[in-house]
């Protein structure tokens, strides 16, 4: 799993995106442009022979520099971009903090952490964004009674909080799917009440049936000016159609349709729902008790309405000297990010708070001096404007042959790495338990509980100590224990700087 090298010379603006070729911001100063050019020449000059087949890229770099370094020509170029509508508004800021601050000239690879902060540049979206929401509700036999009753109430509460020009649709599924409410402006609860009363729980859980029907409804009414979202609620396992579900989720992600999943009780598959929602950076919400459904819905609605930009993705372009190792979302959840189609899907950015990501890269030995290591690019849709927004930053790191006795790590990176290490322990415990290595899994689980205790996470630590005991006795993690472990770890929040003040 590696990200593309520095191979994309054309961008969203078409053939000749000079800013992107040089990897500078649209408002870069002449010094920044010169520095970027010097870096690139050093690495891509055909005579340097560092990378094969760079002659074409080198010509493009020359061309970009000649245009942007000449104020007159740059102004003409900017004018053209504006005329052609290729100048996206600046809707969020991208900050990259590397750690260690400098690397030593040694003859082995080194790890470089990047703490990436995405900060919304607005207090609230103007104009307001509208929702295009589809609720896909599991009505299999196991939903009977308390669960279905709680879902009915939760939907009625949700609708009261929605605006009349938000679009809502409803799908119920078991072995087949049934469209309960076709997409329309949010109806009042007196219209919905009889519809919901007609819901009955009977049959199996074929998630693909519900997903397909729901996605087609959202797709029908989707627009770039809305937040297009599908919310799946289930309490069971789907059989045989998991692959089809994942493909559908990916194709939805490409249309900027987000998917989140609510798992009720203990008998659903957390791996499956994690994969399903990952394609568009959505969330999985664990609801142990049906009484929590209503609150979870409202909280989710609030997050959706606060989405300043959606479909936030990040790409990393590495120079030949570095490569990708792993990436983790730190907020709003602690989660390992999967690379899908060369991108990391981050979901949405709320206008109320920044998002943080920790990226680990491996850097090969380099000579003394400051070297460009990678370029970070974040792109998204902004429903309030119906346009995409892009930000990018080049990461340069100084290498020193003397004086670097120990890595100088910014405290925020240590804090983030500490939480990520807890997440890695959790994943390892799951893996060991899956492989049936009970003593190893138990020891690790106790170790994780001890570390959590030291950090003041007494409640989760207590839960995990109990689970460790159960694991030792029964030889496996219970479905409930596995969920408490995974979602409990995910809720751990590093204390990070920044934000909008």
């Amino acid at each position, binding site marked *: 799993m590696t990200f593309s090298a520095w191979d994309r010379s054309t961008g969203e603006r078409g053939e000749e995106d000079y800013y992107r070729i040089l990897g500078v911001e649209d408002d870069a100063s002449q010094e920044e442009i010169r520095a970027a050019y010097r870096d690139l020449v050093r690495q891509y000059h055909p005579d340097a022979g560092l990378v094969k087949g760079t002659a074409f890229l080198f010509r493009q770099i020359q061309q970009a520099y000649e245009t942007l370094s000449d104020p007159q020509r740059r102004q003409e170029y900017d004018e053209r971009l504006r005329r052609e509508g290729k100048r996206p508004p600046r809707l969020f800021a991208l900050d990259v903090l590397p750690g260690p601050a400098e690397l030593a000239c040694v003859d082995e*690879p080194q*790890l470089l952490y990047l703490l990436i902060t995405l900060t919304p540049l607005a207090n609230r979206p103007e104009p307001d964004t509208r929702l295009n929401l589809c609720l896909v509700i599991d009505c299999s036999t196991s939903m009977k009674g308390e669960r279905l009753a709680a879902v009915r109430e939760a939907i009625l509460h949700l609708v009261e909080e929605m605006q009349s020009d938000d679009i809502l649709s409803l799908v119920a599924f078991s072995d087949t799917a049934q469209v309960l409410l076709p997409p329309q402006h949010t109806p009042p609860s007196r219209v919905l009440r009889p519809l919901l009363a007609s819901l009955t729980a009977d049959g199996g859980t074929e998630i693909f049936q519900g997903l397909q029907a729901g996605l087609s409804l959202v797709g029908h009414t989707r627009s770039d000016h809305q937040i297009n979202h599908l919310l799946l609620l289930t309490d069971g396992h789907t059989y045989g159609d998991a692959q089809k579900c994942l493909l559908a989720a990916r194709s939805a992600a490409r249309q900027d349709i987000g998917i989140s999943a609510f798992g009720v009780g203990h008998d659903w598959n957390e791996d499956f729902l994690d994969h399903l929602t990952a394609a568009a950076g959505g969330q999985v919400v664990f609801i142990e008790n049906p009484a929590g459904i209503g609150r979870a819905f409202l909280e989710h609605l609030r997050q959706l309405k606060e989405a300043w930009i959606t479909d936030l993705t990040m790409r990393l372009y590495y120079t030949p000297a570095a490569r990708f190792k792993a990436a983790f979302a730190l907020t709003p959840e602690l989660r390992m990010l999967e690379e899908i189609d060369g991108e990391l899907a981050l979901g949405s950015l709320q206008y109320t708070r920044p998002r943080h990501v920790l990226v680990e890269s491996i850097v090969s030995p380099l000579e003394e001096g400051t070297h460009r290591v990678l370029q970070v690019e974040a792109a998204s849709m902004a429903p309030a404007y119906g346009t995409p927004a892009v930000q990018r930053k080049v990461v340069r790191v100084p290498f020193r042959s003397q004086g670097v006795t120990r890595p100088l790590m*910014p*405290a925020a990176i240590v804090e983030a790495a500490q939480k990520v*290490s807890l997440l890695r*322990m959790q994943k390892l415990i799951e893996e060991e338990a899956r492989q049936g290595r009970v003593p190893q899994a138990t020891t690790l689980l106790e170790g994780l509980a001890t570390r959590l205790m*030291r950090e003041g996470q007494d409640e989760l630590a207590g839960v995990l100590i109990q689970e460790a005991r159960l694991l030792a006795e029964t030889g496996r993690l219970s479905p409930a224990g596995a969920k408490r472990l995974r979602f409990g770890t995910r809720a751990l929040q590093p204390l990070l700087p920044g934000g909008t003040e």
Partner: protein
Amino acid sequence: MPVCPTCGQPYILNTIFCEQCGTALQPLHQTEGFASAGTRASTGPAPAVVLEMLSGAHQFRLPTDALPAVIGRADAGQTSRPQVDLAPYGGLERGVSRQHARLLWRDGRLMIEDLASTNGTWVNDVRLAPNVPHPLRDGDILRLGTLRLRVQVRAGGTALEHHASERK
């Protein structure tokens, strides 16, 4: 490649925590953040830091084994509260961010790190770069926004024990 002292797993240079067992791979005092985790060798009472408001309104006393500590101002919308809360002392009016800076104890030295605050952190009227720890000495004047504090560093078990109750 170096290996983890606890579990023997090889790791890439600069890795902060072992991926296998979670052991901190950098000596704890240089990564900070773990002083309160019970790993600090205890040799008598820990040294302490006293932050005294120049207006004389208050003193904050922090034993170094309670570091790192965030200096900022508590805010209604926030779940976590900074260890040194300047909200009751005009923090908002003086431009103190919710999480403004933090005090660290690293390599036996007191450090301050600006947490990318809006109005900046200053030591003796020199503005600090965000997210880069800077050493603090006894007698330094620390400024957060426009709020000024005098820094005092006390050796373990000596003076100022009577201030122990100062911090609420």
